[in-house]
């Protein structure tokens, strides 16, 4: 094949899944983010997922120190970062070792062959060099001496060799830009801005980037350009947004829209801390982000702030929610607005703290003493976290009872393009706030429509009142230990949550509206399930498969029985041991549910799901 010839060879792809892996110090997160951002800015749909090692900085070259970043870029709608890889970029043997199993057979793995030293091979527990021992014969291996090529390219910059080596990720990125015919301009802009104060670093990085592009262009081993054309999207201004960031912004938006200040009381915990980090930046925009001494103080302070009239939230992950249970019960009793965000991670106990899971559903529903129902909703994707945070705030303000918002590590850390939604586009939020004297004020007299009680704010003359965790008189809110009043109050609090059903959208079904199989999911598995159903239907046009995804858990939305009754089989797929399926069974015992549970700290994959679909309806 002549050079000329292969230059012209291109391959159109509907979407491509690329993963960058290397040492924590190799800059894989930056590389991945740049690639995704450029792809998005150039019109692709993208979904990303970073995979950090659980160690802060593991020893160089170790298997458990591998840091990864996966991105799925598409010319059509992309709902997940993808399962199997089309391209793997491995900066060292440990990265290769731990990730090669996910590469599709026959597909390309680009490696920095300079890093395949004896010592690195040893650290990766390779007995022989995989680049030469034939063990990778199933794959299209592209070994590139990236380290030396980068150093060569930078030899005139005056940088020391260690600093030069640090730019090899840009070399790799350059190769990928060539491969996907992407313009490197956004990355160049980014580098110029980021290292504004260190021109030599800007220069080095851009040089390395260009060297990578140039090298790929001349490399016979890479005979193909991949083309992933721009995806069709709703008109608008877009940005890439990370789930946790979207959650944070959704709350700011709700606070702005409702004319309140936002108060966060939180204690750091992986993978929820980024919400705190994000909100801590915006204190001058009316956000109080208070880092408390522990989770209990976090939620307690939020209760105090809510009483004082703020839109109050608290953010955490599984074990932190366990600690907040008692105080959440108090908030339910006080009937004040409060949102508790749980970015779920692998449990039980400390479990798999850097991995994703959906195993806190039951805890969100029942993790506190007494009859203490809370509204529970879940976000389905990084960008959807903005809407769901907004909605959680709207619901708690409009119904005067706490809301638990469930997201997870997968969507919290993942990112995707998001059409920016300004406040004008967001639904109105009304509140029960009272800041002026009012005749005939009774702290627990309810709005018959929602059963919400008035929210009279300290500072308001004449409405002084005391609320507390003891059972309360149903009108005055004063302490009452009367038996009948207690029963009424328990039922009122339950009914208040149940009434929310009338204020949320009914369950929707995607794909077929009736037929053989209804795939059911909730929360962060939305993308994985949708992708799997789509792929399955593409392959099996004769099968009637619907997909119903729950964003609203308590109360369940209208239309559940109606939807379920239209399918012969119902499959409930979750990243836990079947909690939502159990909850559905409790509420709709008349249906048969098949469970698909994955409890590996990993998202659902299309292949495994499609196998399951087959098992049920083939």
């Amino acid at each position: 094949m002549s050079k000329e010839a292969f230059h012209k060879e291109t391959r159109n792809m509907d979407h491509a899944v690329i993963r960058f892996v290397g040492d924590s110090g190799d800059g894989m997160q930056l590389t991945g983010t740049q690639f995704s951002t450029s792809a998005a800015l150039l019109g692709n749909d993208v979904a990303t997922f970073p995979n950090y090692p659980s160690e802060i900085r593991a020893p160089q070259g170790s298997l458990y120190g591998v840091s990864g970043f996966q991105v799925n870029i598409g010319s059509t709608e992309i709902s997940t970062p993808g399962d199997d890889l089309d391209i793997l970029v491995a900066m060292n043997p440990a990265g290769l070792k731990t990730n090669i199993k996910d590469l599709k057979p026959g597909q390309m793995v680009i490696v920095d062959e300079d890093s395949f030293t004896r010592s690195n091979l040893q650290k990766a527990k390779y007995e022989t060099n995989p680049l030469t021992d034939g063990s990778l014969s199933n794959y299209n291996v592209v070994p590139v001496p990236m380290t030396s090529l980068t150093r060569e390219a930078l030899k005139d910059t005056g940088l020391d060799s260690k600093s030069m080596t640090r730019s090899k990720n840009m070399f790799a990125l350059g190769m990928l830009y060539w491969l996907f015919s992407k313009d490197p301009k956004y990355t160049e802009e980014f580098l110029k801005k980021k290292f504004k104060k260190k021109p030599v670093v800007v220069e080095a990085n851009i040089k390395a980037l260009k060297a990578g592009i140039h090298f790929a262009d001349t490399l016979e081993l890479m005979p193909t350009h991949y083309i992933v054309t721009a995806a069709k999207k709703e008109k608008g201004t877009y940005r890439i947004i990370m789930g946790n960031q979207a959650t944070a912004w959704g709350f700011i938006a709700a606070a702005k829209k409702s004319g309140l200040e936002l108060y966060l009381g939180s204690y750091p915990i992986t993978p929820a801390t980024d919400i705190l980090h994000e909100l801590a930046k915006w204190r001058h925009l009316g956000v109080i982000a208070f880092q408390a001494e522990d989770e209990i103080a976090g939620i307690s302070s939020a209760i105090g702030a809510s009483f004082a009239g703020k839109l109050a939230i608290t953010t955490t992950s599984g074990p932190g929610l366990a600690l907040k249970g008692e105080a959440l019960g108090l908030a339910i009793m006080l009937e004040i607005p409060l949102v508790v965000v749980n970015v779920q991670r692998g449990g039980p106990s400390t479990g798999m703290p850097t991995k994703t899971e959906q195993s806190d559903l039951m805890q969100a529903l029942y993790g506190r003493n007494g009859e203490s129902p809370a509204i529970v909703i879940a976000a389905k994707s990084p960008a959807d976290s903005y809407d769901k945070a907004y909605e959680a705030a709207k619901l708690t303000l409009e119904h005067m009872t706490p809301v638990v918002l469930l997201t997870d590590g997968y969507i919290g850390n993942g990112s995707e393009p998001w059409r920016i939604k300004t406040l004008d586009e967001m639904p109105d939020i009304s509140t029960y706030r009272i800041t002026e004297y009012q005749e005939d004020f009774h702290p627990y007299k309810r709005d018959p429509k929602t059963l919400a009680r008035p929210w009279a704010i300290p500072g308001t003359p004449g409405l002084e009142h005391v609320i507390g965790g003891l059972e309360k008189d149903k009108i005055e809110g004063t302490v009452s230990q009367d038996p009948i009043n207690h029963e009424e109050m328990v039922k009122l609090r339950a009914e208040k949550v149940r009434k929310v059903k009338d204020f949320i959208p009914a369950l929707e079904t995607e794909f077929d509206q009736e037929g053989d199989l209804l795939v059911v999911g909730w929360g962060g598995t939305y993308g994985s399930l949708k992708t799997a159903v789509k792929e399955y239907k593409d392959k099996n046009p004769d099968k009637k498969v619907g997909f119903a995804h729950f964003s609203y858990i308590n109360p369940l939305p209208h239309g559940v029985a109606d939807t379920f009754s239209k399918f012969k089989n119902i499959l409930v797929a979750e990243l836990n041991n079947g909690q939502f399926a159990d909850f559905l069974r409790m509420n709709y015992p008349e249906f048969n549910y098949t469970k698909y549970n994955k409890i590996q700290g990993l998202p659902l994959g299309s292949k495994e799901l499609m196998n399951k679909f087959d098992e049920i309806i083939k």
Partner: protein
Amino acid sequence: MTTAIKYTFKDFASDQDVRWCPGCDDYVILRSIQKALPEIGKKKEDIVFISGIGCSSRFPYYMDNYGIHGIHGRAAAIATGTKLANPKLSVWVASGDGDAMAIGGNHFIHFLRRNIDINYILFNNEIYGLTKGQFSPTSLLGQRTKSSPYGNAQAPFNPGELAIGAHAKFFARAAGNDSKLQTKLYIEAEKHKGAALVEILQNCVIFNDGAYKDITDKTVKEDHQLVVEHGKPMIFGKNKDKGLVLDGMKLKVATIGENGITEDDILVHDAKEKDVTMHLALINLKSPVVMGVIRAVEEETLIDRENKITEIAKQTNPIQSFEELLFSGQTFEVEG
């Protein structure tokens, strides 16, 4: 309602029946606070009482202000949120020794170190009252209670000492039966900018009656209590003839008129000294027990500091509105 309104203590009494045991010092505390509030120049709607759980924590119900009867141990944390949310409010915590220093110990020390402007009244009866008589973190070694039938084996905290360890800037103490001093201290606490802790040696007539009688009984009171005042010599005794002097790094009681000691030799109380050494010595003194405002050091409060960094954010962050934030960084247009 105007700011000039003149309240009497009755304006701060709610319509709820007070449900403490007859004879409990909690009544004295209640009345003393109700007497203090007309003096602090705050409108009643701007005052919030927050508590945990315990006999003492029923306090907010009896005040005609805003209030939360919270959960056990969390009053300081709840109050922190309320104060951060609205710094204009006068925020008070009513808490028992168990509520504050057993389950609530963590919030207790953190609210102090942060120096947030909350007035914290510690009802120290050295017992769990509401749960009917178990030893608390301030119960004496050897004390027999329902949960220590052979004597308590857990050495007690001294609340003032713990507070100093947590960097308390304001600490005051009064006997549970001394309404006049209490009223004064509550006013001082409110005036003080920053976290203010007032410990009340509160008698529980049911489960720990007489715990303080050696200090608070009318007959011994004057000889066993030293009420300090900033700038005044630390003199006490029925005959006002005893006072504190220094002996190396330690405090000693001397008698005026004996061994050539005159009033001028008596140490003058300096509540504003930043260094904790002397205050700690006063707090730890067993005989006499020191009452009054022992420490009152003004320093930036949490709110001051929060305001400062908000100012930094305002000055330095290029993004100054939510709209700007939404469109910050790399964005792209889709024509649809």
